[in-house]
């Protein structure tokens, strides 16, 4: 063999290995995605379940305590499913999870609307904490604040799981409903935490300062 053939042989070999690696990578992701896709099916069911639950609460005159308990349980499920989803959303993924993310954002927006209704009917017995953030932001300042907020809200959720309903929603996945809400409220800076639809928080607060903003405390 002429050694100079090694240049193109190595190229062909590298292309084959690379292609096999990519195919292997896709299969690997497909395996990981099986878990995610089961969530996707869940999210479809969740959306229907939520719509149905809202009607049941209205039509069957379900009491505030039951309705609240059901809503919080549902919100918890959605929250933890989304956390799991984010664990899979790592650097270097070949497939895009934005669509799945959108579904959860849609679901959480529905949850927000329902929670507002229920809270009105139940004499504001709980606090609604909506966290609007940017899913695709590359800005270091925004990313740092979002990292901080997600930890702070995690603490709040752990501490006041029965009184505070936490609804994180990404604003940059292209959902028109979310755009409508943010435009109506005049919110154009993210991340922001909305407490009971009134207070908007953009700055860094301590846990104590944060607690004081809730009705239920």
């Amino acid at each position, binding site marked *: *063999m002429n*050694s*100079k053939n*090694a*240049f193109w*042989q*190595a*190229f062909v*070999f*590298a292309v084959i*290995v*690379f292609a096999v*690696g*990519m195919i*292997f*990578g*896709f299969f*690997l*992701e497909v395996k*990981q995605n099986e878990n995610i896709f089961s969530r996707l099916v869940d999210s479809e069911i969740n959306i229907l379940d939520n719509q149905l639950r809202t009607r049941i609460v209205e039509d069957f005159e379900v009491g505030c305590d039951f309705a609240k308990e059901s809503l919080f349980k549902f919100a918890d499920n959605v929250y933890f499913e989304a*956390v799991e989803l*984010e*664990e*899979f959303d*790592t*650097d*270097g*993924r*070949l*497939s*895009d999870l*934005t669509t799945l993310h959108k579904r959860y954002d849609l679901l959480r927006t529905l949850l927000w609307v329902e929670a507002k209704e229920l809270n009105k009917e139940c004499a504001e017995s709980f606090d609604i904490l909506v966290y609007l953030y940017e899913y695709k932001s590359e800005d*270091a*300042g925004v*990313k*740092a*604040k979002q*990292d*901080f907020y997600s*930890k*702070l809200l*995690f*603490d709040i959720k752990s501490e006041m799981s029965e009184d505070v309903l936490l609804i994180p929603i990404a604003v940059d996945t292209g959902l028109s409903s979310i755009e409508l809400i943010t435009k109506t409220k005049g919110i154009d800076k993210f991340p922001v935490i909305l407490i009971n639809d009134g207070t908007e928080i953009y700055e*860094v*607060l*301590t*846990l*104590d300062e*944060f607690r004081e903003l809730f009705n239920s405390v």
Partner: protein
Amino acid sequence: MVNFVEFAFFFYIFVGLYLTSLLFFIYISNRKKLFYYPIGKPEPVSIVIPCYNAEKTIGQAIESLLRLNYPREMIEIIVVDDKSTDDSVRIVEEYTGKHSNIKLIKMDKNSGGAAEPTNLGVLNAKYNYVSVTDDDSSPEPDALIKMIGFLQDDEKVAAVTCAVMARNSRTFMQKLQNVEYTIISWSRKLLDCVDSVYVTPGPFALYRKKNLIEVGLFDSKNMTQDIEIVWRLLFHGYKARMCLAARVYSETPTKIKAWWRQRVRWNIGGTQSILKYKKFMFRKGMLGAFIIPFFSFSLFLGLFGLGIFIYLLTTRLWVKYLSTKYSIYAGSTILRFQDLTFNPSVLNFFGIALFLSGLFFTLIGLSVMNEPRFKNKNILNILFYMLVYLALYPFVMVNGLYKLLRGKYSW
């Protein structure tokens, strides 16, 4: 979805995979003749030693030349002192007093590099074959006789290099360089199989005197005159060969500061050579088809990769710093369990595959070279060499480029 930075990583992985595969393919088709050398017959050789402040090593260097398995009357040793300020001259004079074939030439003033004293030595050489050796190097006794056959066998061969090995393995830095030198020697032989020897390192190389003079001798402005001379010989249509069966042992820096200084000089010299020959990219045989693109591409990839690495590292550290600062102020959680979870992506698997192929390549190289010091391979040294030592190179490149741009560099 894959973004620009991730795409760049995939590209790096592909290039790494290609280069490793290339060397493997060359090795597979040439493995039985790596240590081959044409049997040469002894012919007179002048050996030039450029010497500067080498009182600790020059005696050993001369002794090793006197021990060469080569007819004594066919060897002329020319030590060219570059105005040493230590005891080097006195030591060399002791040898000139005892051996009629050893000659000392003293430069009027220090030239600041090895090229000028080497050129003076070459011009004063009596014989048609000229060997150049560093003042801190010791060729094995059979090195010269194994190398000379390459010049006698093919008129177009103008330069022959051999395996440069690290002499000592006392300090950790030297142990790492020991691995490095061994792998470089092996890789250089593999490149020889595709006519791409790009350097005849200073520790021990053999040239045809008339070819050196024809192309204009060593470039005293270049910081790595041993790289530049080969490129010039190739440019003039000559060939350079590598004799893996011949070895020379050379001193290596014991401390990181000296190591850094040496590597920066190598990088400056390499970059100078790229700039000088850039217009011959993709021309002039393997010089333009492989050597210049390989050097240029390595420089670009090293600097670009370092840029990406620094960007990612600083951005992530800055985000973590700010977020932690906010969390401390707020009295909230700093680290959650979910922050520690790791779901490997395709990129991670590719990275691991590339690392393993690099490790495999290194282990094969050490095994092929059969260096006694690697009989009990210290895998930790090899891993450190691959993960940390090699990662320092882009930083050396930046420093070298900075010095080159400022015009502030010296030997």
